[in-house]
C-alpha cells in the first residue's frame, strides 16, 4: 500500500460537485454524507448512484435503512430519473428498513446482509453502493461497542468489495462535524461531505462542504447547494481561474449616445451594472439593451424580480422599446419570479438553466439587488462571483440593475462588493434643480475602454432614449428646464447675433450697392465728359480747316464773284503733293 496516494475519482455527475472535488469522490473507497434531517443526503447519494448507472453505465445498489425503498423510488420520479427502467438491469434497491413490528430479540450484525450484497453486487456487476440512513441501523444496535464493530465490518467489506461506497448518516447536532457518534464513521470514511440546511435572512438555503478528502485535494469551503427539478446542484467553483476568453467585440447598449460615451458599446461577455434610485430608468436602459440584442438576432433572456413580463413590455413600449415582437419571435425570453420565493442560489441556477435551454447570448437581470437583499452580503458576493464568472466563461453579456435608495448611493452599491465584480458600472441619479428632477447618467467605470467622464442627461421620449450634453454653470450641472433655458438663451443670443450680422451685412451691402450705383453714375458722367472732350478736340481741328475754307471763300469773294463756286483757276491749289 501507500502506492495509491491519490485515489481514482468516481464521477458523481452531480453538477458542480465533481469540479469541487477535483474530479469526483474517491473511487473504490467510502464517502460519508452527514447532515441534519431534510438536507438532501438521500437525494445526493441516490443521484450519484442513478447518474452513475445512466451516464457511466455503472450498476449500483441502494440499501435503504431509513425510508422504504419504494418510497425512495417514487420520490425520485420528481427528478425525472426513470428508476423503474434502471431497476431492470442496473439498479437494485434493498429495503433494509426495519418496520416497527420487528421484534428486537438480541444482538445482531451485518454479516448476513453483507454476504447477500456481495452476491447481488457480483450478479449485477455493481460498481457503486449506497447505504442510506446508517444512523437508523446504529440506533437499532443500541450499543456503542456494537456500533463500532458493525461500522468496522461495513468498512472492511466495502474495502474488500472494491465498490465505491456512499454512507449517509443523519445528525441532529448543531455542529455535525464534531458529533461524537460519527467521529468513528468519519475516521473510517475517506471522504466526508457535510450538508446543511439553514435559514439565511428568513430564506432557507442549503450548503455543501467537503470536510475531508483523504489523499486528494478538495475545496474545504462551504458551497451553496440547490434541489432543483434535476436533483442536487452545487454551485461549484465556476471561477476556477479568471483566465476567460477576452472579447474585444462591442455590443450596443441600445442607446447610440451611450455607445458613443463608451467608445463603441459594451464589450461582449462582460457584466454591466446599472445602478440608480427608483425611477431613474434603470429598467428602461436595460430594456434598451435587450431590444438592441434582439434586433441583432441574439437570443436574450430578461429576468425580472420586480415586475411581471407584461408590465415590463408595456412600460418599455411607452419609450419606443418594443419587446413584444421579440417575445413573439422567441428571440426574447422573459422570466419573472418573486425574489423571496427561492434562495439566491436557486434563482441563479434557474437562470443558468434558462440560459442553456434558450441559448441566450445576452442577459438582463432586473434588479440584481433583489438577489443580494435576500442573502447575507458575504454570501451574495460568493453567489454573484460564481455567477458572473460563469457568464464570462459562456461569453454572455450581462446587464444587471441595482436599486439604490437614499442619497449615498455609491456607498451602498459597493456593499456586497457587487460593483467591483462588474466590468462596467453606469450610475443613474436624479439631479434636483430649479424645482424639477432630471436624470443624470454617469459612467463610473468601464474596464478596458476609454469612456467619457462626462455627466449626461438621460432623456426619455416616445421614440427612445437619448443622452444630451449638459451645461455646467458655476460648478453646477444644468439639466432639464435650466438646461433648456440656457439653451434658449444661447439660441436667442445666437439669433440676435445673426440678426445683427444680417443687418450689418445688409447695411454694407446697401452701401456697396449705393456706391456701385454712384460709381455707375460717376462713370457715366466721366464717359460723358470724355465724349465732350473728344468732341471738343474734334471741333478744334474742324475749326482750323473750316477757317481756311472760309478764307478761301472770302478771298474768292474778294476777287469778285467770277467763280462763285470757289475753285477757280485764278489761284493755284494751296496744297500740292
Amino acid at each position, binding site marked *: 500500500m501507500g502506492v495509491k496516494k491519490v485515489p481514482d475519482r468516481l464521477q458523481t455527475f452531480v453538477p458542480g460537485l465533481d469540479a469541487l472535488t477535483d474530479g469526483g469522490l474517491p473511487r473504490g473507497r467510502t464517502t460519508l454524507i452527514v447532515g441534519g434531517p431534510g438536507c438532501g443526503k438521500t437525494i445526493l447519494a441516490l443521484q450519484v448512484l442513478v447518474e452513475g448507472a445512466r451516464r457511466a453505465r455503472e450498476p449500483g445498489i441502494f440499501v435503504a435503512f431509513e425510508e422504504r425503498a419504494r418510497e425512495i423510488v417514487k420520490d425520485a420520479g420528481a427528478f425525472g430519473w426513470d428508476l423503474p427502467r434502471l431497476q431492470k438491469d442496473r439498479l437494485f434497491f434493498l*429495503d433494509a428498513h426495519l418496520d416497527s413490528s420487528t421484534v428486537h*430479540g438480541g444482538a445482531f450484525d451485518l454479516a*448476513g446482509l453483507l454476504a447477500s450484497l*456481495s452476491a447481488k453486487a457480483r450478479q449485477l456487476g455493481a460498481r457503486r453502493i449506497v447505504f442510506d440512513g446508517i444512523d437508523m441501523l446504529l440506533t437499532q444496535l443500541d450499543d456503542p461497542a456494537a456500533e463500532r464493530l458493525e461500522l468496522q465490518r461495513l468498512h472492511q467489506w466495502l474495502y474488500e468489495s472494491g465498490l465505491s461506497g456512499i454512507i449517509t448518516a443523519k445528525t441532529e447536532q448543531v455542529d455535525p462535524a464534531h458529533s461524537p457518534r460519527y467521529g468513528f464513521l468519519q475516521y473510517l470514511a475517506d471522504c466526508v461531505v457535510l450538508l446543511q440546511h439553514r435559514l439565511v435572512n428568513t430564506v432557507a438555503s442549503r450548503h455543501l462542504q467537503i470536510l475531508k478528502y483523504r489523499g486528494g485535494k478538495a475545496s474545504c469551503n462551504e458551497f451553496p447547494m440547490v434541489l432543483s427539478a434535476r436533483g442536487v446542484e452545487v454551485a461549484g467553483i465556476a471561477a476556477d481561474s479568471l483566465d476567460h476568453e477576452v472579447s474585444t467585440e462591442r455590443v450596443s447598449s441600445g442607446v447610440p449616445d451611450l455607445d458613443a460615451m463608451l467608445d463603441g458599446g459594451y464589450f461582449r461577455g462582460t457584466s454591466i451594472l446599472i445602478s440608480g434610485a427608483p425611477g431613474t430608468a434603470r429598467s428602461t436602459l436595460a430594456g434598451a439593451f435587450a431590444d438592441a440584442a434582439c434586433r441583432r438576432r441574439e437570443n436574450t433572456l430578461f429576468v425580472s424580480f420586480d415586475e411581471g413580463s407584461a408590465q415590463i413590455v408595456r412600460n418599455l413600449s411607452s419609450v419606443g422599446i418594443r419587446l413584444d415582437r421579440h417575445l413573439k419571435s422567441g428571440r426574447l425570453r422573459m422570466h419573472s419570479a418573486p425574489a423571496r420565493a427561492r434562495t439566491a442560489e436557486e434563482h441563479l441556477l434557474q437562470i443558468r438553466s434558462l440560459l442553456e435551454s434558450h441559448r441566450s447570448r445576452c442577459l438582463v437581470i432586473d434588479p440584481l439587488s433583489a438577489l443580494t437583499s435576500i442573502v447575507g452580503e458575504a454570501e451574495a458576493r460568493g453567489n454573484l462571483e460564481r455567477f458572473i464568472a460563469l457568464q464570462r466563461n459562456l461569453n454572455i453579456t450581462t446587464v444587471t440593475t441595482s436599486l439604490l435608495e437614499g442619497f449615498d448611493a455609491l456607498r451602498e452599491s459597493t456593499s456586497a462588493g457587487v460593483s467591483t465584480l462588474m466590468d462596467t458600472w453606469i450610475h443613474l441619479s436624479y439631479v434636483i434643480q430649479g424645482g424639477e428632477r432630471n436624470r443624470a447618467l454617469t459612467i463610473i467605470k468601464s474596464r478596458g475602454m476609454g469612456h467619457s467622464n462626462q455627466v449626461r442627461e438621460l432623456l426619455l421620449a416616445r421614440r427612445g432614449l437619448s443622452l444630451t450634453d449638459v451645461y455646467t454653470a458655476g460648478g453646477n450641472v444644468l439639466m432639464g428646464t435650466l438646461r433648456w433655458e440656457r439653451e434658449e438663451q444661447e439660441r436667442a443670443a445666437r439669433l440676435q447675433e445673426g440678426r445683427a450680422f444680417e443687418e450689418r451685412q445688409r447695411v454694407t451691402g446697401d452701401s456697396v450697392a449705393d456706391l456701385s450705383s454712384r460709381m455707375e453714375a460717376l462713370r457715366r458722367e466721366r464717359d460723358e465728359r470724355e465724349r465732350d472732350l473728344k468732341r471738343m478736340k474734334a471741333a478744334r481741328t474742324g475749326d482750323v480747316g473750316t477757317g481756311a475754307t472760309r478764307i478761301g471763300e472770302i478771298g474768292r469773294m474778294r476777287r469778285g464773284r467770277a467763280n462763285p463756286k470757289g475753285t477757280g483757276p485764278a489761284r493755284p491749289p494751296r496744297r500740292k503733293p
Partner: protein
Amino acid sequence: MKHERTRSPARGSREPLSLRLYVAGEAPNSATAIRNLGILFPGGETSGQPVEIEIVDLLKEPLRGLADGVVLSPTLVRLAPPPVRRVVGNLSNHGAVLLALGVVP
C-alpha cells in the same frame, strides 16, 4: 443449501410452529441464535406443540435473504401459524422472543 429440519413427534392435533432462522455462517450472533433456539425449544417442541425449524445460511444462499426481505442476521421468522412475525437478533432475550412467537412458556 443447508436445511435443518427438526420435526418433533406430533402430540395432539395442534398446528406446528414453523420457524425459519437466517444466519450468517458461524458468526457469533448467528451461532448464539442457533444455541438459543435449542434452549427455547428443547426436543423440537413447546408445550406439546411441534416446532419446525429451518435454518438458512446467508453465506451459502446469499440471494435468498434479499428475496425474502431479510437484512440483518440473525433473523428468525415465524412462517406459521400466520401472521408472519420477525425477530431480529441472537434471540438472547428469551422473553421477548417467546412473546413475539406467540408461545406461552
